[in-house]
């Protein structure tokens, strides 16, 4: 239970960006030994509040008091030195450094000013990673690992920096259920040690599982502060969204469909023995028109790789692909796109967004690339399309000229989704499409997938959330250790447990 | 100008052919190319084996080349220094190795003159003076002020510094001569034209143009013509070097006088090399034969210009 005295208190925080008021007079309290959830829709101002607190941004107004003292951090370094350690929303580590170095940089053990013990750093890193059940080569550059692993490394680093306050901004967005549990174990341990934790997530179950209290933001304004056990989910959602709209109920209703008739048709895409050494072992996969195929598996099991091979993002070494009845060699994404395949990549900053371009330009990019530079999308049509999808996916700010770099994480994801939807693909590959997306928008996207499939679009759906996979797909491919081990039809009998068992045992049933 | 290599060839037996290592500055101008050609041709004619290297205007490359020659144990080293200082260390090495060094084209600034046997080339200060001499004579007895604009060579280049100094000192005595503008034209036609165009815009009455080399003068002539003036008449032009194009311009009446700076050092150099190898004493300072050409002499000299 929280002490009466908050370790951190923020009052009247106001932060403006040109054209946007990200925070307007927000108050916030954090007590030692509690897990505090910061809640809000995409763009509500959660990350901005965290960045203001830790000195990344300077607020226009407001004060922060840490452990009884007025503080004003001019840089994250200062915040860190004062005992506030943070994992920011997008993984913010150095891709070129090794895992061990990322964990220890800036606080390497030194002797006479010289870093003297690399083996020790590696050993400690392995030890720390073992706490989240990760056994990886810590000397390899961070960039060679999947986003999820990078996320865990960032967490491990933040947690290891002895701190009074640990801030985790959507740390779980790319973790699977097991990894989340590992993280929670670590968080609980910190909590017992009296550390104050600030936690951001769009997964309500996680919030209810781990947090003690929560602060809700909406449109940059404080809605209020509640004890988690005193607020029901429906109330929470309606406070976040600001209407009494019961999104949750709608979510539950989301249809779980099975179209047995699909299997009898010719598949839209049939991959046979597609594989690449070191990435995934050769696999067979067929996707029918109007079918949603889910991929399940643990971290690094090779789901992303399957998607990338089909899309030609990586070049397959073995196997063939038949699309629409004609055999194809998919060597580059361009050929795949030419066959009406679209791919929403997992890591939106490095593989998806062009940060310096506007929302409009980012949305139009794929369509434009397909048409070639000679045939620009007519401005009228382009603006119509862009406006339509900004509206449909409720991208905020709804300004097509805003730089995508300045959008909140969830809204960036929506921009990418819009980019592919306007190309009206026949097969849409979604790698973690709901990462970092708020409950409302998530339901929106799930509904979208269902309706697209009903209109005949095929979807390959990858998500760390088994529930989501289960809810949407007609059939689920299960991966383990970079091998497609099973293909399970999604009938009444398929449950998350059965999928987990399949993953664990490594064989289909 | 000199003979086509009817040097006595007896020193050049098959085995003990004289080896000359020549470290050239670079190939930065037509003048330099003529200089290189002259040296190559006369070495061939004199039966001297020439080791050649091009330093691309970099002193360190020249030092490397000289050091290389020392290592290859050539008989004589000759070079045109990029700059006149900084040669002591490497020349000492040459001296220690017993290889005589001949400087061409410009001198080096060293207290120890034993580091080289001789220097053959022009005196840039004298060239500037000669340019001034012509000017002084041309305006002899006139009292109205003479507005001069100067196109300098590249900053830091020895010819630019000395030609400016030689000229400036020589006209200093006469208060009528006024250098109203002086800018670098970087020894090129394009810059010469650009700078002259600007001069013409900001100075309505220019009487004389003094250019540190022909290329800048040739560029400036075009600027003058475009400004609607007559080069050589409305604005008198003095230039240095004596390339063929400049002689042509003199014939056309566009340049008034050219002070020659002769790049064809080859024959003289080879003669010296042979003397040095034989152990004959040579003069410490050998000036190349150079003239001052005016318009009336230009037509006669034009056909014989080689570069």
């Amino acid at each position, binding site marked *: 239970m929280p002490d009466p005295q908050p370790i951190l208190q923020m009052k009247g925080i106001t932060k403006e960006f040109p054209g946007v008021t990200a925070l307007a007079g927000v108050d916030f309290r954090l007590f030692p030994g509690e897990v505090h959830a910061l809640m809000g829709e995409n763009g509500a101002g959660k990350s901005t509040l965290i960045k203001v607190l830790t000195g990344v941004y300077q607020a226009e107004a407001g004060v922060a008091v840490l452990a009884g003292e007025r503080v004003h951090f001019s840089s994250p370094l200062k915040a860190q030195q004062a005992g506030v350690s943070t994992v920011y929303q997008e993984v913010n580590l150095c891709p070129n450094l090794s895992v061990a170095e990322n964990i220890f940089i800036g606080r390497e053990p030194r002797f006479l000013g010289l870093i003297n013990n690399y083996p020790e750093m590696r050993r400690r890193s392995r030890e720390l990673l073992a706490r989240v059940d990760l056994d990886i080569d810590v000397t390899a550059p961070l960039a060679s690992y999947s986003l999820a692993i990078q996320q865990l490394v960032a967490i491990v680093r933040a947690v290891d920096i002895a701190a009074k306050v640990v801030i985790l901004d959507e740390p779980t967005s790319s973790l699977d259920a097991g990894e989340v549990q590992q993280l929670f174990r670590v968080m609980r341990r910190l909590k017992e040690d009296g550390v104050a934790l600030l936690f951001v997530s769009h997964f309500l179950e996680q919030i209810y599982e781990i947090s003690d209290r929560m602060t809700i933001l909406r449109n940059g304004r404080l809605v209020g502060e509640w004890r988690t056990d005193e607020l029901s989910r429906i109330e929470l959602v309606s406070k976040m969204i600001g209407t009494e709209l019961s999104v949750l109920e709608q979510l539950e209703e989301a249809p779980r469909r099975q179209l047995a008739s699909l299997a009898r048709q010719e598949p839209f895409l049939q991959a046979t023995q597609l594989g690449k050494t070191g990435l995934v072992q050769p696999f067979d996969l067929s996707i029918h028109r109007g079918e949603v195929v889910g991929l399940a598996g643990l971290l690094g099991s090779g789901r992303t790789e399957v998607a990338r091979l089909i899309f030609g993002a990586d070049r397959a070494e073995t196997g063939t692909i038949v699309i629409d009845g004609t055999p194809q060699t998919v060597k580059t994404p361009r050929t*795949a796109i030419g066959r009406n395949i679209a791919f929403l990549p997992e890591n939106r900053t490095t593989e998806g967004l062009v*940060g310096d371009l506007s929302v409009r*330009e980012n949305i139009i990019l794929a369509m*434009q690339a397909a048409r070639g530079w000679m045939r620009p999308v007519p401005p009228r049509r382009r603006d119509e399309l862009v406006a339509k999808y900004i509206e449909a996916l409720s991208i905020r700010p709804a300004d097509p000229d805003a730089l995508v770099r300045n959008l909140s994480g969830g809204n960036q994801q929506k921009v990418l989704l819009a980019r592919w939807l306007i190309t009206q693909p026949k097969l849409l590959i979604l790698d973690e499409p709901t990462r970092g997306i708020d409950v409302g928008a998530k339901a929106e996207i799930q509904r979208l997938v269902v309706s697209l499939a009903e209109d005949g679009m095929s979807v390959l759906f990858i998500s760390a959330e088994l529930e989501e996979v289960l809810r949407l797909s007609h059939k689920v491919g299960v991966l383990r250790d970079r091998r497609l081990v099973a293909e399970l039809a999604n009938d009444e009998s398929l449950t998350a447990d059965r999928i987990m068992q399949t993953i664990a045992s490594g064989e289909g049933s | 100008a000199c003979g086509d290599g009817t040097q006595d060839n007896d020193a050049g037996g098959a085995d003990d052919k004289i080896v000359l290592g020549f470290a050239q500055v670079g*190939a930065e101008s037509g003048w330099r190319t003529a200089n290189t050609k002259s040296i190559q041709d006369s070495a061939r004619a004199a039966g001297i084996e020439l080791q050649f290297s091009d330093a691309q205007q970099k002193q360190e490359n020249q030092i490397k080349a000289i050091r290389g020659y020392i290592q290859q144990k050539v008989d004589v080293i000759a070079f045109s220094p990029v700059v006149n200082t900084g040669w002591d260390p490497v020349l000492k090495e040459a001296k220690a190795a017993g290889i005589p060094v001949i400087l061409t084209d410009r001198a080096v600034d060293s207290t120890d003159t034993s580091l080289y046997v001789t220097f053959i080339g022009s005196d840039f200060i004298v060239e500037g003076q000669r340019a001034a001499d012509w000017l002084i004579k041309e305006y002899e007895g006139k009292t109205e002020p003479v507005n001069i604009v100067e196109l300098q060579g590249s900053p830091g280049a020895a010819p630019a510094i000395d030609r400016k100094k030689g000229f400036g000192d020589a006209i200093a005595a006469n208060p009528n001569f006024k250098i109203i503008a002086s*800018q670098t034209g*970087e020894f090129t036609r*394009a810059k010469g034209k650009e700078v002259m*165009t600007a001069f013409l815009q900001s100075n309505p009455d220019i009487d004389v143009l003094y250019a540190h080399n022909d290329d800048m003068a040739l560029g400036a002539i075009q600027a003058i013509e475009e400004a609607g003036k007559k080069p050589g008449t409305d604005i008198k032009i003095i230039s240095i070097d004596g390339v063929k*194009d400049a002689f042509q311009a003199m014939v056309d009446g566009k340049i008034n006088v050219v002070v020659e700076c002769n790049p064809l050092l080859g024959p003289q150099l080879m003669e010296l090399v042979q003397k040095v190898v034989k152990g004959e004493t040579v003069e410490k300072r050998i000036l190349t034969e150079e003239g001052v050409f005016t318009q009336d002499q230009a037509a006669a000299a034009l056909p014989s210009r080689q570069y």
Partner: protein
Amino acid sequence: MTRHRLFWPVLVLVVLLLGNLIEKPDFFAIRIQDGHLYGSVIDILRFGAPLMLVALGMTLVIATGGIDLSVGSVVSIAGAVACLHISRQADQNAVSGVLLAVAMALGVTLLFGAFNGVMVSWIGIQPIIATLILMVAGRGIAQLIMDGQIITINSAPYKWIGAGWLLTLPAAVLIALTMIGITALIMRRSALGLLLESVGGNAEASRLVGIRARSLVLLVYAVSGLCAGLAGLMISSNVSSADGNNAGLLIELDAILAVVIGGTALTGGRFSIGGTVIGALVIQTLSTTVYTLGVPPETTLIFKAVVVTIVCLLQSPAFRSKVFGRWGPRRTPPPSSGSPSEPTSEKVPA
């Protein structure tokens, strides 16, 4: 108005021009002479035309996140090829011969540009090194073509390119503006600009949306070669001679400077052709100012350094907010690209 991305470069240009006025009150005077316009401002445009062209190509290259150091050498090669061809003709004034020479020169430079493009896009060599090769070797090639001599020609049609006039205006300026206009038009009317910016902004993302990045990069270097070639023709035509060693010397630095002054980030992505033209004019005006004010050659560089520093500081939003405090004590997240995040309305055809 100060929010417009070209505000500061234009301001600097204006200030420089006004600076000249103090020394030379009739600086802006333009008179008609021999049927064409004559005056300092015209001279700035005329002598700045080659730089504008080179900077135009450079802008596109930089937009893709590259850089082209070889433009100076390509300038010299273009002049060499054209002048050599013309000098060998019986009648140097024959228009057909000149056209052929121009076509040859542009063809050659296009090839050299494409060579850079292949090195960068297909072999995957870092642009600075890939183009350094041609930068070093190119002048050697130019000198080889001309046997180390300056070729002087006497061809009225050729001279027109760099020193001729059309409708009272310098032909070089018209040619440059035409090229710039065509390029800008293509960039805005077609989707080329968007795709280039995308490649420069995030190459991997561009690949994944199916942009043919390699071909685009190849194209851009080829265009840069072509622009440099055209500039080379102007420079050599202006003085009716080709100088393998000095033509276009260090023009790559001026061009890059022009691009950056014009507000295009060296890291790639967003570019502004209008900005580049302003940038090139700033640089040319700077030279003219040096002549007009009579800055001695020894201090010219210091003068240039000071002006460049001032321009770039003014351009920097960080500097303005820190020094003038216009937006209060605000610190936007350091965008990794360092490009100003102003509204860029002019980029998109509205």
